């Protein structure tokens, strides 16, 4: 929320002129009959998508020339709001003249781009973007009918955000590569979740199979596990600086046990590790002297120097030992 969000603005005022024009007078609205196709020796394909009970339904008609699989005419019928009608009209327009194989490649993004008045300004406000998604789905259905294949076979990847057509694979990769931690970042990087918002989390506009919150959590969890594993592996190889905190403490204790503690005990003292702080530049080990060491002059000079140099030599040059 900020100044520009205070007034939500009129939904309809954000439509492009093309959307408004097509809503008021759709050019490809209508039906293609079997008789028309029979006369021309063409094949009629009619496909439905959506349902009135869901608020959006479209029926797509294709007249296909079987000699070259070309869609010679396309029409639509639509139950829906203005953007649904305008999107359906543009979808039919984009199909005309294409082969069925090429028409399948038309996405909702193509439909929306074609509805723009200028390339930089979206044709519809974000929450209306989903209206064009049906266009993509019904084309796949029609193509499946014509080619006699399952419509699902046209989809090669799992689409999480249908409005922006962002796949599960892309999302996982972007989160990982850019070390993203919030949904807002995901939307900034990929546009996913920036439109109808259904894919962000359950309970939105429509139920989804995958949600961004879950994907983000999953990838972050994977990344954390991997980080720990690589740290553990590194620790196993003795690379002190990349060890986890617990591994560092164990390694420090091991060095102290092996090379230092016995000399302190001989003098009636001892030492314990209180904390380890890794600033990147330094690894500060906070220690506390016990018994006779406590107050011994050497504890802040010779003993300390010996302890630090031993730890430096055995573990890392970044180590500083700080008595408290």
């Amino acid at each position: 929320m900020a100044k520009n969000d205070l007034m939500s603005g009129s939904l309809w005022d954000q439509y492009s002129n093309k959307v408004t024009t097509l809503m008021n007078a759709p050019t490809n609205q209508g039906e293609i009959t079997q008789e028309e196709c029979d006369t021309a020796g063409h094949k009629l394909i009619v496909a439905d998508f959506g349902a009135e009970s869901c608020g959006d339904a479209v029926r797509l008609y294709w007249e296909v020339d079987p000699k070259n699989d070309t869609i010679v005419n396309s029409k639509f019928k639509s139950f829906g709001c203005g953007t649904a009608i305008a999107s359906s009209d543009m979808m039919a327009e984009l199909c005309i003249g294409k082969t069925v194989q090429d028409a399948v490649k038309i996405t909702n993004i193509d439909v929306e781009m074609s509805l723009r008045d200028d390339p930089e300004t979206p044709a519809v406000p974000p929450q209306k973007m989903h209206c064009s998604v049906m266009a993509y789905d019904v084309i796949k259905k029609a193509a499946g009918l014509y080619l006699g294949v399952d419509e699902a076979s046209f989809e090669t990847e799992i689409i999480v955000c249908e409005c922006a057509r962002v796949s599960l694979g892309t999302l996982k990769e972007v989160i990982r590569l850019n070390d993203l931690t919030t949904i807002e970042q995901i939307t900034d990087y990929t546009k996913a979740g920036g439109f109808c918002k259904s894919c962000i989390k359950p309970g939105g506009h429509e139920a989804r199979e995958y949600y961004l919150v879950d994907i983000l959590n999953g990838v972050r969890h994977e990344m954390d596990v991997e980080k720990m594993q690589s740290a553990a592996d590194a620790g196993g190889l003795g690379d002190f600086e990349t060890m986890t905190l617990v591994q560092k403490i164990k390694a420090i204790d091991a060095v102290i046990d092996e090379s230092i503690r016995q000399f302190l005990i001989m003098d009636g003292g001892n030492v314990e590790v209180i904390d380890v702080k890794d600033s990147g530049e330094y690894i500060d080990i906070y220690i506390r002297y016990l018994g006779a060491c406590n107050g011994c002059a050497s504890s802040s000079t010779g003993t300390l120097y010996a302890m630090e140099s031993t730890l430096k030599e055995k573990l890392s040059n970044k180590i500083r030992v700080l008595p408290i």
Partner: protein
Amino acid sequence: MNVYLDNNATTMVDPAVVEAMMPFFSEIYGNPSSLHRYGTASHPAITKAINQMYKGINASDKDDIIFTSCATEANNWVLKSVWFDKIMHGEKNHIVTTEIEHPSVLSACKFLEDQGVKVTYLPVNDQGVVEAHTVRSFITEKTALVSIMWANNETGMIFPIKEIGEICKEKGVLFHTDGVQAVGKIPVDMQDVHVDFMSMSAHKFHGPKGIGALYIRDSQKLTPLLHGGEHMGGRRSGTLNVPYMVGMAKALELATENLQEKMASIAAKRDRLEDALLSGLTDVFTVGNRANRTPNTILISIRGVEGEGMLWDLNNALIGASTGSACASADLEANSVMLAIGADNELAHTGIRLSLSRFTTDAEIDYVIERFESAVKRLRAISSSYAIVQPTAGGEAGEHHPHH
């Protein structure tokens, strides 16, 4: 012709109301709490406004009517303060309301649920009304409050407030009603019903936006929502909004004087419009028995025509109406009122609400009948519901598809 038929959303401020408010902006502008003459100059007008308010809803002198910024504030005040008084600092933990309340009640209830309160959302019957016996059966010993609207904004259906009030009185449960769609439209007599709290909004009866009121029976306890300078007896702080109080009271007076005549006049126009649409169009129906509806409201379902698409065409014809199932709403669940009254699922997105006012004219009704019918004709010509050529075998919409 410009025709505004969205009077359940808001109304035009009656010019007589504007006139009554005008002196209290730049002439009599003193703070009524001040001791000097500039402050006290508004006192007669405030007294008059209070009297108009009490008369408008026939409140007893023992009751309070507290001005608020809007009905949303009044609804929030009741819900949150009953929670504070009876649940946080009491033995209760339950609120009863309905599925079709205004968002200011439903959202506040959801918030209270997050705080651990149990909330029961009662369903409505096929007339869009909550039945009194249903309310009775859900009240428990733990129930702190029943909150049920007097009339519904989408359907105009009037709820059995008198019966529900009697049940709440018998059970010893507080009863709040959101009276926003009732006050100024139908008789609201607070001495005839047992209601503990009632919310009102001026802009629904030709008063200004930005002012509402809460009626509180017998001046009973309700912890303030807004603490401050002890205005209105400490019940609701904030410098008295004199021009708007005057405006609200004047609007209530104008709306409620000769109410029966006004209702009859609006109902005659509404009925003429409704009859014309029902007889002039096929496959349409309206929600709820007219005899139990606010006289200005029609919720009409038009098969094959999506609500927002219809609004678009009406808007092109300079007619303002509304739909309860906007395609862009964050939650595209079907209109709960339409589903509740037993409409088929496929009709849940086809509802258009037409709400008249006392300023609606017969000429406007004639114009709307004509343009409404031509819009339906155009959209049905585009509609897939009215397509003739059937899908290729296998091309029907599947039962399961990823959208909605």
